[in-house]
């Protein structure tokens, strides 16, 4: 069961982890894994996101002593994840499409569930703020308040990102269905 994080409790864990407490870092890993995975998934293929998670947390653990304010941890971890994803893309020198069908028509199963590859591809085409917030909500299953706590964004910003991002995604899906 994944644990929702509370800011005050996280601050204690971050300070303890920076002082070398392995258990505290392990707890941070558990708490922030979904956020890191979601950030990576916004940029790299699903299989690569899994592989890169370890890199992100190892980099964070190595550099944690240099973090001056515990409150900066979510944004800082998010930046490490984004940078690692970009390094990965530069290293692979290619951005593989999620699906060869990505440019095609929207397919739905008999129960009306849309093609997951295509939906993720459409989400990844949204502006960064909307893309990350929507992935955390729709893929990782986090609620708006959880996203706000873990990303360091204000609840108002998250709400706006979710609403605007969802509106753009609905339009994109509608456009695909109309094809």
């Amino acid at each position: 069961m994944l644990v929702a994080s509370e800011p005050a409790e996280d601050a204690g864990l971050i300070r303890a982890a920076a002082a070398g407490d392995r258990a505290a870092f392990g707890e941070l890993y558990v708490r922030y894994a979904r956020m890191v995975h979601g950030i990576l998934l916004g940029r790299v293929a699903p299989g690569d996101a899994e592989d890169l998670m370890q890199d992100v947390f190892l980099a964070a653990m190595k550099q944690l002593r240099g973090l001056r304010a515990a409150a900066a941890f979510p944004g800082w971890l998010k930046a490490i994840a984004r940078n690692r994803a970009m390094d990965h893309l530069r290293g692979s020198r290619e951005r593989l499409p999620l699906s060869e069908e990505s440019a095609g028509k929207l397919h739905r199963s008999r129960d009306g569930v849309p093609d997951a590859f295509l939906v993720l591809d459409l989400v990844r085409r949204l502006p960064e703020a909307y893309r990350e917030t929507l992935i955390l909500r729709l893929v990782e299953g986090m609620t708006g308040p959880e996203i706000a706590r873990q990303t360091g964004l204000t609840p108002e910003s998250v709400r706006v990102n979710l609403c605007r991002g969802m509106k753009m995604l609905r339009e994109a899906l509608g456009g695909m269905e109309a094809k």
Partner: protein
Amino acid sequence: MKDDYLWDRSGPPDPEIARLEEALAQWRYQPAAGFRGAAPRRPWSAPGARWMALAAALLVAISTWLMKVAPSVPTAWQVARVEGAAQVGRQAATVSMALGAGQVLRTGSGAALTLQADAMGTLDIGPDSELSAASNRRVELRHGALHAFIWARPRQFVVNTPSASAVDLGCEYTVTVNSSGDGLLRVAMGWVAFQTGDQEAFIPAGAECVTRRRSGPGIPYYQDAGQAFRQSLAAYEGGRESALGDLLELSRPRDGLTLWHLLTRVRASDRGRVFGRFAQLVAVPAEVTRDAALAKDPRAIDRLWDALNLENADWWRGWERRWQ
């Protein structure tokens, strides 16, 4: 409020959002699959060694915790053949059994086992081996022997060992790791990159490379190199710098591969000797100056690699070239 379900899942579900959640849930972070039982990548790095040791311990702790709260997620690796005593986790290995993420596979003395993943390839695990799969693309050989025949695209499959990671570049190879964590990689077909941190070795078919727990991947050499050449290389890598002279003198044109790796690894004061011998054995492109090579200019090193005229090295164009 209209967007309550989108915000915190309160209120009546929005059917469109619920369908999107259902479709996308397959990529949700899975705790057990998220664990990587990788060995620390730079165990010899002075300031990093402690952190890496902590990382390994931390990941083991996380793995243990996760395995208590969630069942192991099966990977695509399935047992295709078992001879003798072998275990997957706490169960006796049987054909068709899937290896779970983070689960440990052990073979007994005299035992052998084959794993197969349809989209990746086959892994023959030798006796007295211990291996775990972090994901479909990454396994860790803690000790023992592994023979891999991989048909996935280059760079899709990685074997971690206690001292280096073997990145598949489309090939067939054997990795052995002894109880001390030192290992040997022999390539039968294609290429493998052996790497840890920014230290890399590129090993073509017919070549092999040792890796040591304290120093990572060594310098690759062809298996048909003379005994004296191999002994000199081992002595040099073991710290006897005076062995470099014999090593250079005994080099054949084919050993340009070994000298190319030495160029970026030897002390700056020895680099001139290595380049000099390389230039005697390999046709160095006119645009590569001695000064550029000695300065490890990335373009010069790249052109010297091209001069080796190695086969099937298209992957090189997409490689990260961490030594740059």
